């Protein structure tokens, strides 16, 4: 009973946070505010879905913020040069896929630690975005592109629909496909997976490619929200995405993580920053609060696991 309660802790935190904010400020529970929270968190959330997959394998992807920028930039440039909007969105997603593929290939073929590879590409992709754009944002995009980031479908923000679809797909991948199963196996014990005949390199490469692809999609949504292709977009988003996964129960040593957990984690971060905005909390303190929440979440999780792991010897 206690254990189940502790596992539900992130979810309960989210609920409590939601009600606390509803009581604390009349501006919270309004359609406009909630839609704005949804739009803000959708971008991070979509990246965090890819990050969940990566973290389950025991890896990390620090480059997703830079991929977001480079994908958004290429997509925006495509639109500006007359590409139809759906095609431009695919350009952005494809660009993310390519960047992720490069990450995955370097990790598996050169056997470099994912932290190092993606730390390198965090810099390199950002640099490429700046080189291509000469450091200038891409403006003058047709208004119709704003639908992706700011539009509504059936009264719900369009980006939330995109998130929902991605989340369902990712959940299916994790729980019901070989790729997901192998991701858990690799993260839990890559040697055992190798000994079982699992093609590790192929699946790891696919995992980073998917994370890149989702970052590319997030980049198009971000570009649509800003109505510019910004080479400096998404700085620090990778850390927020990692935080969302970790708050939601993902373990940086691999083998653990879930879509539901990550969604909850991202919404907790989203509500915390929205709530402190509404309550007029100093934005500098916001950072302190979010940092504390990340550490507290992991500390609780560790305590829970320690209790579980005490077995008789």
């Amino acid at each position, binding site marked *: 009973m206690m254990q189940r309660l502790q596992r539900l802790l992130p979810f309960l935190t989210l609920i409590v946070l939601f009600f606390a904010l509803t009581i604390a400020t009349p501006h919270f529970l309004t359609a406009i505010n909630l839609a704005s929270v949804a739009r803000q968190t959708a971008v991070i959330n979509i990246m965090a879905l890819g990050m969940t997959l990566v973290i389950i394998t025991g890896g990390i992807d620090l480059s997703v913020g830079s991929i977001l920028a480079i994908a958004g930039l290429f997509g925006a440039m495509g639109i500006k040069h007359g590409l139809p909007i759906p095609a431009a969105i695919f350009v952005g997603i494809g660009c993310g896929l390519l960047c992720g593929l490069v990450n995955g290939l370097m990790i598996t073929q050169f056997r470099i630690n994912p932290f190092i590879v993606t730390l390198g590409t965090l810099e390199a992709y950002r640099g490429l975005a700046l080189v291509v754009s000469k450091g200038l944002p891409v403006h003058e995009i047709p208004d119709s592109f704003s639908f992706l980031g700011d539009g509504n479908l059936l009264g719900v923000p369009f980006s939330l629909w995109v998130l929902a679809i991605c989340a369902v797909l990712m959940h299916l991948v994790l729980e019901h496909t070989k790729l997901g199963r192998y991701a858990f196996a690799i993260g839990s014990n890559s040697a*055992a997976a*190798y000994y*079982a005949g*699992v093609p590790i390199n192929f699946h790891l490469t696919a995992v980073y490619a998917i994370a890149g692809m989702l970052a590319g999609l997030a980049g198009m949504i971000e570009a649509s929200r800003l109505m510019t292709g910004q080479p400096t977009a998404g700085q620090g988003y990778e850390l927020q995405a990692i935080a969302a996964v970790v708050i939601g129960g993902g373990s940086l040593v691999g083998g653990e993580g879930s879509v539901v957990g990550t969604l909850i984690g991202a919404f907790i971060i989203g509500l915390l920053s929205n709530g402190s905005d509404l309550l007029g909390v100093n934005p500098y303190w916001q950072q302190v609060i979010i940092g504390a929440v990340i550490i507290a979440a992991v500390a609780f999780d560790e305590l829970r696991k320690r*209790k579980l792991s005490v077995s008789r010897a």
Partner: protein
Amino acid sequence: MLLSLQGVQKSFGGVKALRDGNLEVCEGEVHLLMGENGAGKSTLMKIVAGMFRRDAGQMLWRGQPVSFARPAEASAQGIAMVHQESLLAPHLSVAENIFLGHEGASTGGWVNRGKINERAARVIAANGFRLDPATRVASLTPAGKQLVEICRAIAQGSSLLIFDEPTSSLSESETREVFRIVRELCSRRIAVIYITHRLEELRAIGDRVTILRDGATVHTAHLKELTREDLIQHMVGRPVNAIYRREPQPRGKALLQVENVSRGILREISLSLHEGEIVGLGGLMGAGRTELCRVIFGLDPPDKGVIRVAGRAIHSKTPRQAVAAGIALIPEDRQNHGLALKLPIAHNITMPDLARISSLGFLRSNRETNLANEFRDRLRIRCSTPQQLAGRLSGGNQQKIVIAKWVARGARIFLFDEPTRGIDVAAKQEVFEQMDKLARQGAAILMVSSELPELVQVADRILVMCEGRITGELPGRTTQEEIMRLAAPSAPRPGDSAEARALPDRT
């Protein structure tokens, strides 16, 4: 009486690990502590060493009631534990490890390396060990690491040392070295509590034995008064046919042929495994037995030579190709190479063959559950549900999961590398029964074992390796002495005692 425990109890989150722990240890005796996995041996010892606090019961140390909240309190009283997995700092030197936490207060935070090395050298020399105080611990063998732990305990002036399965990762000669040390300690009036699984070790070392079963002490006696069968019966709680003998089977056609394979230390290895037979592979540590399994399983492709499955040459560069050819490896290091401990039993069983439970690219959880249930029953894996995490099961049950996943994959050639390492007596029998069953169903089995009695009991014929070569083949019902004769690096003259032949000094 040095140490006396009465009615000690300990629970972890509702699970009673220890119901009624009783133990009495005299000064200078070697006291064996035996029992199956989960019987509560380690829990009891961790209470003595101050790593756990007992929930109830009494502990007397030199006649005084004591209760330790921390290992430091126990070691201050002279109780130290030598752990199964070494608890040393690998990047520090031997000397630094010996005095870690006891560097001496007078130095005021500064560590005088020369002085510490000198002090360590004195401790090492006093015990007749061969160790250089300045070596980094990471570069030592498992046996060397245990020596360091023993030195640490002695340097702290311990009068009771607890050894938790010290020989489970050691070679024959290292094992003998540990025995020598234990006897040496005992001659200096230091008491030793020795936890072990290996029945073979008993008489070489112990005076008295205490047996635990299901968290309670069931028997204490002088070793002289007990037969091997008595011991097993006390441990398991029912009589077990300790001497497992496989009925020899008519063998079928050759399934696996290894022809002139060389790689690393392996020199021109040739062997064949036939349907329906269990072939033992004996030899000393470092003879190349595990290396041979790795080559056959595609972990290290051969530099020279050919491996054939059912007559067709396979050229595996990864285990994936070997697995596709029907080869399975039950690795020596089960926890690191055989299982994903954080994943459910069912996921471990289906890992090599997800296609079997998928349709249209999606995994079918009902098919997976059915398959897992089927193999749980077939291999008698004791668990509450197949959704339980593999890491929560005992060693024997974990080994059965590893076997199950290959049987589910439809493997035909099984390489068992030390299949009984770290599992208890009853589970060993079950593993042998499974091997027998597989062979009856037409599988070809290679069994690597350092436990000579097991080889003699289970194998239909035995190949012996020495220094990377196969030095001979023996019939299944051979003697341990015959195996040792082929396993020793230089062939001894006839007339040497069996003991001398079994003791090649390779240190």
